[in-house]
């Protein structure tokens, strides 16, 4: 403590007060407090967070909730359900016309990674996982479209059903693109928004195309 010898305290500053600094946030008991709660509480908390983000996607306002606490649960659930629904088109081994589960999975995640890298290289201020989170959550309208398409295909597969499916898929594709650009475009320099929006447009276009051309065999 050699350095303290130089410190001098003037007479009129009161040297009093609490010497214990409340550092309660680092005590080991607090870190383990979430382990003691019942499993249902943990799951409900995560589900509520995911549900809130779904609502934000369906009504895209300029809010930062999606960006602030990102999580990848929602994108995982959406991606898996979309891939499962798209898989039923090729039960026959001779006809490999439909996309496989792994294919859809890889397309969604690889595409999201490429778009994120692209937006970062163009000078974006958003972080890697935040961008993945937004792109994954904005697949929700297309998953809804896939559900609707499957229901419509149960009724029949004629020209009318194709027109209905086309309208639904195009509407949901537009919604997805708009929702994701509402969140992502703000983080770019203003004159480069078009450069970031185009790959997002291509990404959702490919997914919409896979949904539209899905035919159960």
């Amino acid at each position, binding site marked *: 403590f*050699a350095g303290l010898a130089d410190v001098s305290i003037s007479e009129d500053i009161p040297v009093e007060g609490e010497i214990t600094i409340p550092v309660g946030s680092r005590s080991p008991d607090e870190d383990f407090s979430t382990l003691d709660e019942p499993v249902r509480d943990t799951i409900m908390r995560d589900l509520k967070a995911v549900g809130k983000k779904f609502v934000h996607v369906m009504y895209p306002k300029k809010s930062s909730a999606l960006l602030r606490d990102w999580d990848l649960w929602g994108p995982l659930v959406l991606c898996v359900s979309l891939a499962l629904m798209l898989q039923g088109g090729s039960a026959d081994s001779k006809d490999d016309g439909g996309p496989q589960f792994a294919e859809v999975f890889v397309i969604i995640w690889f595409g999201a990674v490429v778009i994120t890298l692209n937006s970062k290289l163009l000078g974006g201020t958003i972080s890697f996982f935040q961008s993945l989170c937004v792109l994954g959550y904005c697949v929700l309208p297309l998953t809804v479209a896939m559900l609707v398409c499957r229901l419509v295909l149960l009724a029949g597969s004629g020209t009318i059903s194709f027109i209905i499916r086309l309208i639904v898929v195009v509407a949901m594709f537009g919604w997805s693109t708009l929702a994701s650009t509402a969140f992502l475009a703000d983080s770019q320099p203003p004159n480069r928004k078009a450069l970031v929006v185009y790959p997002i447009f291509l990404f959702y276009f490919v997914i919409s195309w896979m949904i539209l051309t899905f035919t159960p065999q």
Partner: protein
Amino acid sequence: AGPGTMAAAGAASGGRTGGAAADWGGFEDNMQGGGSAVIDMENMDDTSGSSFEDMGEMHQRMKEEEEEEAEGEAGAAEEEDGEFLGMKGLRGQLGRQVADQMWQVGKRQASRAFSLYANIDILRPYFDVEPVQVRARLLESMIPVKMIHFPQKIAGELYGPLMLVFTLVAILLHGMKTSDTIIREGTLMGTAIGTCFGYWLGVSSFIYFLAYLCNTQITMVQMLSLLGYGLFGHCITLFVTYNIHFHSLFYICWLGVGGLSTLRMVAVLVSRTVGHTQRLVLCGTLAALHMLFLLYLHFAYHKVVEGILDTLEGPNMPPFQRVARDIPVVSNAVLNTTAKAIALTL
């Protein structure tokens, strides 16, 4: 001999830490508070040159010193109280080991993340474009330059070519779906991505190699950029002809649009090469590959009548086989239905 050397090392590091403590006196108080969140601003001025790494080093040194002291203590305690070995000695040691491990893991993760970030930064200058520039370059890629006596400028950017390759993948998917292409030993998406990226990267590398042999003044990034923008013609042609199935229209587009973009690439390369033989070799190869690729893309994913072959040949079909048939658009539907009717009766 073990504890002796450790004690000596402890003393040495203690001496080192003592010396360092004279310089970093202000921090010592805070660090001994056990990671307190409150940092005295007064003391910060004394150590204004501090950085996060220095704090980390100091923390590490102090932890090592504590470890060595405590190891000496624990050793003594173990020799004295054999029964209480499990309680105090192990918990202390375990805690320290866990803390040490977490520090190592954290350091490793940070360095890995840093190297990943650094890799992205290598590519950053190639993506520094404006939308206006991209549009201008797209239009320029269809206009062959006339001045081949001065080396033409090639913009070394990768955003436009990358987006064009992805667009080509999307158009190819559309074409494969509408032509009901059936791929046995692969997937549609994999084939499309593999074809387009394989062409862009493979042919670029091959032409770059030829350019190196022919003494052309061009870098790899410029070659990638040139070929990438040359795919713009392919995108337009395929987009038009996958939707409107007239053979004569395709041939006109092939020669017109494909020819224009090939001529532009050839002109740029000619302007950068010296010597007639070299120019001929390089430009002939590029023109042939570029035009043949467009031909391949059209005919490989053309509207095929797969149903006939499927039903007639059955399971003896070799994998990944598609046969293109020159059937005019009008009678396609009729042929399909008759083929299915015949197959059903067989």
